[in-house]
């Protein structure tokens, strides 16, 4: 068996890369190997949101373009990912954070046309009467952000990729990446060698281990995050709301268009790849925090809980492309630090250009893996949840 390109990982990142590669070069033989079913990891376990408001210029630029591609996905693939652009609302309780938002807005967001709206507490209360905001300093509203059906994005890529004779293998974990001298030779699957000229690692939380096997250490730490959904009620929480009170433990809450209220807190902090289980610690902490912020949720019932991964990189920004010191033909797209779903479309678009033509777009340059070696880290700290 011989392929031009093998993609390790059938999540939204791997499939987006596969989709754009096929689109650019339909005759190319491309296979995706997925250890479980497509979307098994963070792709199906995320909060299904997109946003453009990051704290570093490279991420803002990347996210704006990714958002644009995401919103045109419907007409491009026939799968409308049913977007609802309801915005993000940050509730800010201390002066220092407030000033950071002010300066980021002035220096970065406005520059790219995604300036935010600052509201004083009375405006917030008037506009969102269901919130109990306590000693709020300000609300910050990002209009461009919103929700999108994450599964449909994954399926759209997979469906279109397969339509063009792309191959997706589910339940076929890649055991090893084969390196011959200074070149990638292929992968080993179920004890068999599958040859390929190029191999892309897009295995989410499992990328670190795969790369480590061939002697490359990426500065990544997976973190398990828990989420829950309440029974549906009429749609009243339009934006995604982030409560920045210290004791809210990174609470965010939103409502899906079908009425289910979804949210999370950053507790308990669990690092590493663990089973996707849930804890009472999470449930009770979340319940306390969310009923304080929105008291009308008190009597609503928890319908289901689940957990997923953030694959957190040292500078909270993803790693894409390759380092010239690596074996030839080896690429990565990983370490999205909780933003993988929203960054997937532009990742696929840029990676396909890079893999096929060796073309490094300027938007992707800051995210190349050699930044760790050269000490050019991205100054990104905005990770939600």
């Amino acid at each position, binding site marked *: 068996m011989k392929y031009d390109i093998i993609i390790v990982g059938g999540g939204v990142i791997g499939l987006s890369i596969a989709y754009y590669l096929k689109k650019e070069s339909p005759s190319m033989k491309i296979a995706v190997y997925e250890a479980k*079913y*497509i*979307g*098994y990891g963070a792709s*199906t376990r995320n909060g299904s949101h997109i946003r453009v408001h990051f704290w570093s210029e490279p991420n803002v630029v990347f996210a704006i373009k990714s958002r644009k591609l995401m919103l045109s996905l*419907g*007409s491009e693939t*026939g*799968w*409308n990912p*049913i*977007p*609802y652009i309801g915005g993000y609302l940050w509730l800010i309780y201390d002066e220092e954070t407030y000033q950071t938002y002010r300066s980021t807005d002035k220096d970065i967001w406005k520059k790219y046309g995604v300036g935010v709206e600052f509201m004083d507490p009375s405006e917030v209360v008037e506009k969102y*009467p*269901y919130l*109990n905001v306590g000693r709020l300093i300000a609300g910050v509203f990002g209009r461009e952000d919103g929700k999108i*059906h994450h*599964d*449909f994005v994954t*399926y759209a890529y997979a*469906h279109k990729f*397969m339509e063009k004779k792309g191959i997706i293998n*589910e339940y076929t974990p890649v055991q090893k990446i084969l390196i011959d001298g200074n070149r990638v030779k292929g992968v080993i699957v179920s004890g068999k060698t599958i040859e390929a000229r190029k191999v892309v690692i897009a295995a989410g939380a499992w990328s670190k281990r795969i790369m480590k096997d061939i002697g490359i250490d990426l500065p990544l730490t997976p973190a398990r995050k828990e989420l829950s959904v*309440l*029974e*549906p*009620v*009429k*749609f*009243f929480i339009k934006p995604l709301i982030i409560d920045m009170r210290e004791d809210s433990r990174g609470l965010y809450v939103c409502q899906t*268009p*079908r*009425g289910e209220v979804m949210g999370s807190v950053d507790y308990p902090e669990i690092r590493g790849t663990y089973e996707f*289980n*849930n*804890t*009472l*610690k999470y*449930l*009770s902490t979340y*319940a*306390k925090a*969310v*009923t*304080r912020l929105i*008291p*009308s*949720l*008190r*009597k*609503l*019932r*928890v*319908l*289901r*809980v*689940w957990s997923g991964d953030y694959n957190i990189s040292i500078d909270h920004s993803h790693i894409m492309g390759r380092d010239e010191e690596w074996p030839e033909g080896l690429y990565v797209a990983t370490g999205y630090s909780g933003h993988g779903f929203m960054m997937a479309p532009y990742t696929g678009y840029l990676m396909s250009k890079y893999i096929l033509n060796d073309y490094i777009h300027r938007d992707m340059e800051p995210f190349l893996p050699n930044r760790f070696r050269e000490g050019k880290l991205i100054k990104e700290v905005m990770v939600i949840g």
Partner: protein
Amino acid sequence: MDGDEPEPQSRPLSVKLLEDGIYILSKSFKFKRPRGVRNLAWWGSERIELKNGYNINPNIVDEKLINEIVKIKKLGLSSKLIWSFRDSLGAGFYHKKIFRNKLVWSLFTKMINKFLPYPYPDMSQSPNTTYPLQINIDSKFLIIGGGISGLKIADELSKETRSIVILEGEKYGVGGYASLLNGWPKKIQTLYNKLRRKGIKVINAAVFQGFLEDAYIAYKYDTEQTIKIDADAIIIATGGYEIPPLFENNDLPFIFSLTTLLKLINKYGYTRLRKGVIIGGMGDLDKALDTLIEKGVNITVIYRNQAPQKDREYLDKHGINYVEEVEKIRTSDTLRVKKLLIHSSRGEKLNLDVDFVAYTPIVSPDKEVVAQLNPKYVFDTRLGGYIPLHNLSGEIFRDKNIYLSGISGGYFPIDTIEKYAAIQARYIISKALNYENYDIYDFADAFNEIKSRYKELYQAYVMMDAAYQDSKVYEYIDWENPPTLFEGDASSIFVCHDMDVLYKDIVRSYKELGMWRMEHIKRYTGLGTGVCQGRDCQLNAAIILNRISGKKFLEIGIFRSRYPVMPQTLESLAGVEE
């Protein structure tokens, strides 16, 4: 009944739907609330008919919405669009076709609240930090399920310790099969009274919520309190599971387990089941038949082999018709099957008019609780319930002290249950209380006894074992001539009642997109993401997928039924102390 009179049950939506001629494959009896958007596309007898076939359920949709729909029509949208719009509401929100159209989607998002048949939450709640009190259980043994099996194990355990708590989901008295009959069997009543005299605590209206990583909790739903459990050993005795298997053109006659039949008739007061067939051979039929005869239901009992002597005596005494050594059951192939053809190897041929078929064998235990553990394991138990036979000790985790009672009162004769319970209880005592040299039963002997004494049971297990491997399901059906799938208008058959996923949605997912893994069906259609979390609908979906794709059950797989078993209020969780 020891002073505890059961409260009359209100009739759940499922029964109403059945009576309106809407057939549901997954029956979520426990939760009485409709969730699906399909309530808007209604074809029940009380419907409001708009032009172009747009029907509305007057019970759920208000006048405002109807006006809104009329307004859309005035906008000049074609009736075809409205039809497809109605259609699109089918699989939750997530059916693809109509929402491919951006204009429709943006219109829809603007009108979202009109289309969601849910209320607003109580907006008058004020912020406060007083939460419902938490109940703490600290005992040596916790038994989940207060049916015959749970009671009997408690009885055995109580010989060693009184530190036993039983959680029962019913609001009053015992649970399980006995609670469906007209009066508890005498043995159960005696047992119940005995346990109460011994001071063993039964907490009613309490649902075990499943296995979190850091705690075991249950939920007392009548008072909306969290129960936090600290026990040395947990014994799951949550009984049998009603699976309505897919027969050829599975719309009618209604086919379900005897437990479901009793629930419908005796608990929920469903009145349209007047005559039918019970596939017998396993449990004690007498109490169930007593109950059904009293309701005036006309029954024929059929047996795959010979009827047990006990059954024969009872049937003869009451003049109930029965057929032994049945080889084949066929249904007529018209849309609404009313006739059942039964052939026995003795040459008997029966041509019956029926409203239902109920079966006693082939159940799987403990669906809701065990469903929280490990999907593969649950699939085993769901498809055959043969684990207790393979593993009579009931031990499901070597290191966790959680045991599974594989004995279901609805399907086993009482003396079998007693024997099982004794075997299990002694084993559990020896393990959980670290008793060394404790006299435990020899499981191999018990296994052989079942094999020789309960041939039907053993056969059913073997059959299900084979079915699990070979992707055949029920041998009672004539699988030689493969059944055709429902090709006509299957729009009125629900598979997932919570998320309104229809039979045809699953067929479509496979035919149009080649999806046949359960994980993908779940994400694409929304199946099993509602209250039941797949506990009710997954098996049927798996059978449908198996029939259309030919894939084995193991390949189709199942998704994880997520915590909790019963939806639980946020405030009850907010009050939990760590």
